[in-house]
Structure formats: structure tokens, C-alpha cells
């Protein structure tokens, strides 16, 4: 059954312990480490300039944020110049309404979709369906979970929680009308089946909706990055292309986007570059033989402008590579659904309270061992652990924490003010956690299943990160 998609503290605890006891999910999560982590490390090792690129990426994003109004206006002017249209949306409701109106203007009945986390964020599929328009996800992973009526459990591998048998079941249940009556389980056969079924959808869609990883101010261009080519068929075949994106995705120039392209795929999948990187500028030109007649960009804010100038502004540098998720021991133990909303892992823990409110999601920053791996691998140096601590302090001050959390933090504060005791307790905690964790160093069972006991506030069993946190704490107190 799909795990609850309503984010609140009770559900998180329940979801986390359910996830730990779910053998299918646990087997699927084993793929995260050899898959993403090893491939990223190998790709990074092959590019000596990677750390310089990270610093450049961070500085570029900071530059953009400092001049965000300027670059957004420039991007809009350039899109207009080429015959496209930019629509600004303050929140999810406005963004949904804009998309609906564009669809209605061309009497659209069927919409194909490339992968877009913004679409998940605004709940576009449900909205369109309720207005009589059929949205069809075309990224294979997104398609699978759409058939299963689930949310993505990962921002770049949405069906990572599933195995082939579950995919086979979903296809078998839905592909009969397309002539596929036999249940097939081979990944190759499943792939071919999806390819054929989705081909028909691409060819019959009225509108194609993609996301955009970047918006280039210099040229008024949106950029998508995919491996499947589904995004390209989505945006090339129908009469209308809508790129759904958010205000922090703007970058100044083609040179700057080149820097982010070098960072993105290596951090995400460990590829040198994804198979397809596509730059779209306006609608099809006179004499073009294909391409959409209309080009729309929806720029979503949804709480992001409120992060400007504050302690969370750095989060707006995020390029959604998922490296922090792939390296997070908590995500590795419980998967993405337990987080209860669209963005899981460390980036989600920081972002979600902004987007759906601290009341609903202020608990998420507790889902951390503060091991620091997320910050170490982030291609734009976002200080994720520090931000999670900010949220925790805020939530604590607001007394929104469940009693157990307040108790936990109280105990932590007691130790934190007594360095010697803290060290002993932390080392003891580390020792306990090490004993509880499997050979891969992940804390699977007791600590989580028992509802995040007091130990969850103590560092993961790695001495270094304890020292870091300790030093940070001391700085904060002095």
C-alpha cells in the first residue's frame, strides 16, 4: 500500500518504523549505495577540477541570488523576445491555474509530462485530473509510480523503492488494453512494453509539460537533463510546451550553465554528462519542420522569495542533484516515502518546512544523524546540517516539538553544556549505534523503530563529525 503522503510528526515516526520493517523496501534501498555513491565517487575522481567547479558553482549561485530580480526580469524579456511567454506564480494554486488555462485554451485533453519535481510540489496531476485533463508521466520511474498511485520516493530515481515484480504487477494491471496481456518480469521486456505504450501517448498528447533544471537569462532558454529522451518527446511532439520551474533556477549565461552541467550529472548519477541535455528557446521557428507552436514558462515562487536574505537563503543554491539524499544514512535506512512529502533526505528536511509550513514539517530536520556527509558531497556547498539545526532550534523555541523531542533536546542541551559528560555520552552513543548498525554502517533498527530515542540526537558513529558538531556548538555559545 502507498505510504501516507500527509506530512506530520506522527506519520513520520510511524512511516519510519514501518519502512524499517518492510523487507521489500529494505532490499530496494540496498541499491542506493553501490549505485549512486560508488558511481559518483568514480566520476569525481576522474575530474581533477571537481572541487574548483563546486566552489565556482557555489559562487555563481550566490551571485545569482544577490541579483535574482535582475536575472529573472532579463530571462523573461528574452523569452518574450523569442515569442515565448513567462507566467509568474506565487503559490501552487496559481501555478496549477496557469497550466490549466494554457491547456484549456487549446482544448487539451491529454498532457504528457517529463519529470518535474515542481509538478509534484504543486500537485499538478491531481489538479488536472479533477478538471478533466489526463496527465501522463513519461519518465519510466514516474510512469510506474503514477500507475501505482504513489509519490516519488527519490528526486531523481522516483521508483527506487520498487522491485521488478512490483513493476510487472503494475504493467500487467494496466497494459491489457494496449495488447499486453502476458505478465512479464524481465527488465528489458518491461522497458520495451513501456516504450511502446508511452509512444502512443507522446504522439496523441495536446500539451507537453517538462520541468527545467536551469533557466538561462542571457538567451531566455530553459534546460532539461534526462537519460531516457522522454522529456524531448514530451516537449517536441505536442503543439504546446510548458516548462514548469521555480525562480531560483535562473543562471546568467551559457558559460555558467556549462559549469552546472559539469557538476550535476556527476553528483547525481555519476555520469560524465546525462545522455540528453536540451536547451529550449521559444516556440518553433518559421520553416521548422517540427517543435511546439507555443512555449510557456511557469516560474513558481511558493515560499522561495521568503527565504531570501535569511538564514536559509543558501538552500536556494540547490540544483536537485540528490547527492545529499544518496549519501544520507537516514534516507538509506527508511527511503523517501517516510518523509511524507515531495522532497526527501537532507535537502527535503531543510526545504519542506518552508514550502508546506513549520507546523506540518518542522519535525523533518530531526531525521538526521548530523554525520555531515550531505554537506561534504553537495556540489554547491549547502551547509545542510547547520540548516537542519536552525530548524530544530526554531521548532524547539516555538514549542511545536512533540514532548518526546523536547525531552530529547533538553537532555542534549544538558550534556552540551557539560563538555566532558557530552563526550562520554556521545562516545557511548556512538558505540551503541555502531553495535546496532549493520556492516554497512547504517542504523537500521532499534534506534529508529523505538521512535527516535534520546540517542538520535547524538552524532553518528564517526568521531570526526562529533568533533565538528562539538566545535560548532562551542562557537555558537561563545
Amino acid at each position: 500500500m502507498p505510504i501516507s503522503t500527509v506530512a506530520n510528526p506522527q506519520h513520520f515516526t510511524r512511516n519510519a518504523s514501518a519502512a524499517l520493517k518492510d523487507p521489500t523496501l529494505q532490499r530496494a534501498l540496498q541499491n542506493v549505495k553501490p549505485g549512486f555513491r560508488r558511481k559518483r565517487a568514480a566520476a569525481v575522481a576522474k575530474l581533477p577540477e571537481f572541487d574548483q567547479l563546486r566552489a565556482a558553482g557555489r559562487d555563481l549561485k550566490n551571485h545569482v541570488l544577490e541579483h535574482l530580480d535582475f536575472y529573472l526580469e532579463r530571462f523573461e524579456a528574452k523569452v518574450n523576445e523569442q515569442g515565448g511567454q513567462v507566467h509568474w506564480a506565487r503559490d501552487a494554486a496559481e501555478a496549477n491555474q496557469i497550466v490549466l488555462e494554457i491547456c484549456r485554451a487549446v482544448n487539451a485533453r491529454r498532457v504528457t509530462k517529463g519529470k518535474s519535481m515542481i509538478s509534484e510540489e504543486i500537485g499538478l496531476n491531481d489538479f488536472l485530473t479533477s478538471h478533466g485533463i489526463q496527465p501522463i508521466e513519461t519518465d519510466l520511474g514516474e510512469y510506474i509510480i503514477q500507475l501505482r498511485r504513489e509519490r516519488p520516493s527519490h528526486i531523481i530515481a522516483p521508483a527506487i523503492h520498487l522491485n521488478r515484480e512490483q513493476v510487472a504487477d503494475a504493467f500487467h494491471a494496466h497494459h491489457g488494453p494496449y495488447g499486453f496481456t502476458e505478465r512479464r518480469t524481465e527488465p528489458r521486456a518491461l522497458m520495451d512494453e513501456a516504450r511502446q505504450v508511452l509512444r502512443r501517448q507522446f504522439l496523441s498528447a495536446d500539451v507537453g509539460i517538462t520541468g527545467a533544471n536551469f533557466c538561462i537569462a542571457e538567451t531566455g532558454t530553459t534546460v532539461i537533463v534526462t537519460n531516457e529522451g522522454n522529456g524531448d518527446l514530451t516537449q517536441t511532439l505536442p503543439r504546446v510546451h510548458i516548462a514548469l520551474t521555480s525562480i531560483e533556477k535562473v543562471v546568467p549565461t551559457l558559460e555558467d550553465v556549462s559549469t552546472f552541467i559539469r557538476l550535476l550529472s556527476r553528483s547525481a548519477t555519476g555520469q560524465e554528462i546525462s545522455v540528453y541535455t536540451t536547451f529550449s528557446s521559444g516556440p518553433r521557428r518559421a520553416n521548422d519542420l517540427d517543435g511546439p507552436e507555443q512555449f510557456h514558462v511557469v516560474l513558481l515562487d511558493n515560499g522561495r522569495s521568503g527565504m531570501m536574505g535569511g538564514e536559509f537563503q543558501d538552500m536556494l543554491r540547490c540544483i536537485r542533484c540528490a547527492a545529499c539524499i544518496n549519501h544520507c544514512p537516514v534516507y538509506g535506512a527508511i527511503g523517501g516515502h517516510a518523509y511524507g512529502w515531495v522532497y526527501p533526505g537532507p535537502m527535503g528536511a531543510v526545504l519542506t518546512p518552508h514550502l508546506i509550513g513549520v507546523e506540518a514539517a518542522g519535525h523533518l530536520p530531526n531525521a538526521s544523524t548530523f554525520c555531515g556527509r550531505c554537506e561534504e558531497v553537495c556540489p554547491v556547498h549547502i551547509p545542510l546540517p547547520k540548516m537542519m539545526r536552525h530548524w530544530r532550534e526554531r521548532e524547539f523555541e516555538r514549542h511545536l516539538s512533540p514532548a518526546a523531542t523536547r525531552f530529547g533536546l533538553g537532555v542534549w542541551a544538558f550534556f552540551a553544556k557539560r563538555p566532558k559528560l557530552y563526550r562520554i555520552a556521545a562516545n557511548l552513543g556512538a558505540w551503541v549505534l555502531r553495535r546496532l548498525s549493520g556492516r554497512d554502517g547504517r542504523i537500521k533498527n532499534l534506534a529508529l523503530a523505538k521512535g527516535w530515542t534520546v540517542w538520535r540526537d547524538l552524532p553518528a558513529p564517526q568521531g570526526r563529525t562529533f568533533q565538528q558538531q562539538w566545535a560548532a556548538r562551542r562557537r555558537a555559545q561563545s
Partner: protein
Amino acid sequence: MSEARKHILSNIRRGLQRGLLADLSRVELEARLTHPPRNIIPARAQLPHPEQVALFIRMAESALATLDRIASLAEAPAAVAAFLERERLPMEIVMAPDPELAALPWAAQTALHIECRAARDGDKTSVTPAFAGIAETGTLMMLSGPHHPTTLNFLPDTHIVALRADRIVGVYEEGWDLLRAQSSKMPRTVNYITGPSRSGDIEQTMQLGAHGPLRLHIVLADHE
């Protein structure tokens, strides 16, 4: 929704604790857009041209593209026919209506059926030129236009790309420089293509040919 626009922009400015950007910074930002500075350029592709070509080949093949090297573009039709035969593919291609491609000796390939147009569902093999090859990652850079319909890059099962070695550059930035030298405007679509389509969405095991081509074959000509 101009109200939303105003609201978002003023929220941003409030966060930044300023009003409209001062004219001076505006001038600086404009200058940066008109003369975009390069950021970090990987050393791996800063090589003499023959070595850039070798790097392009290595990188494209490691992204699972296949590649045939021919002496001149005039040999491309024969190379295409030979590839189709070798792979036991039907002797029919949909070709980009590109003047340079059209000028090649296709007539000599009597067994080959050729149509020049955009792609349709059911097309097996497309043949297109590339605007440039980028050595750092073995990436093909394709521009859309009346002679270069984008669908040819995505709909057919097999995509064959004819590329001249002198169109290979080192890094992405050099590809953009080539484009800027040719036109002040972006085409509707620029595609970077690196290897054939793939997906790892079923149990994180890679399968080729997700929605785009199953095979990407490059015919690389040392000379015109």
C-alpha cells in the same frame, strides 16, 4: 498575473534589503551578459586537435555510442549502408534535409531507401549531421532548424550521425562560441546527445533504448 510578478520581485528585493538595482551594478551585470566570462575549464580537453578527436572518440564510446572512422564525408553513404547491413537493420533511412548531407553520393547506394523529412512514428533509422562534437564528454551538439528537425534525434530506434572531425572542439564553451559566431540567436532547440537513450528506473539496472534511440552510431570523417 502581473500582480504575482510584482509580488515575487518585491519579496526578493525585500529579502535583499534593497530597492531596484543601482544603475552601476546594472551596467556591470549587463556587461557580464554581453561578454560572458568563462569559469573553470577542465584541463582534460585542452589539447592539440588530433588528441581532442581521440578524446571525443573515447568518451563517446564509453557513453556506449558506436563509431566508424572514415577518410572523407563522401564515404558516409557507403559507411551508413555497411552499418545497416552489419546490424541487420532494414535498408531504409530518414535523413535530415541538410544541403551538405544531400550533396553526398547517396545514389551509389542503390539498395538504400531514403526519405528527407522530419521523423514519424515507426521510422527505424535516421541520419543527421551534427553541429559540433564536444571532446570533454563525447557529446554531440545538434541545432534545430528547417534542415534539422529535432524529432530525427529521438523518434527512430537507431540514430546515425555524420560528423566532420574539424567540427570537434574541446569543451562546451567552445561549442557555444561556434554557435555565437554563426548566429546571434539561439535556435528553438539545442540538443547535447551523449550515447543512446537509457533508463535505470527498474531496480537500478541500466537498459538502453528507454524512449529515444536504442543505438547511437557516429560516422566520423577526417576530412570534408
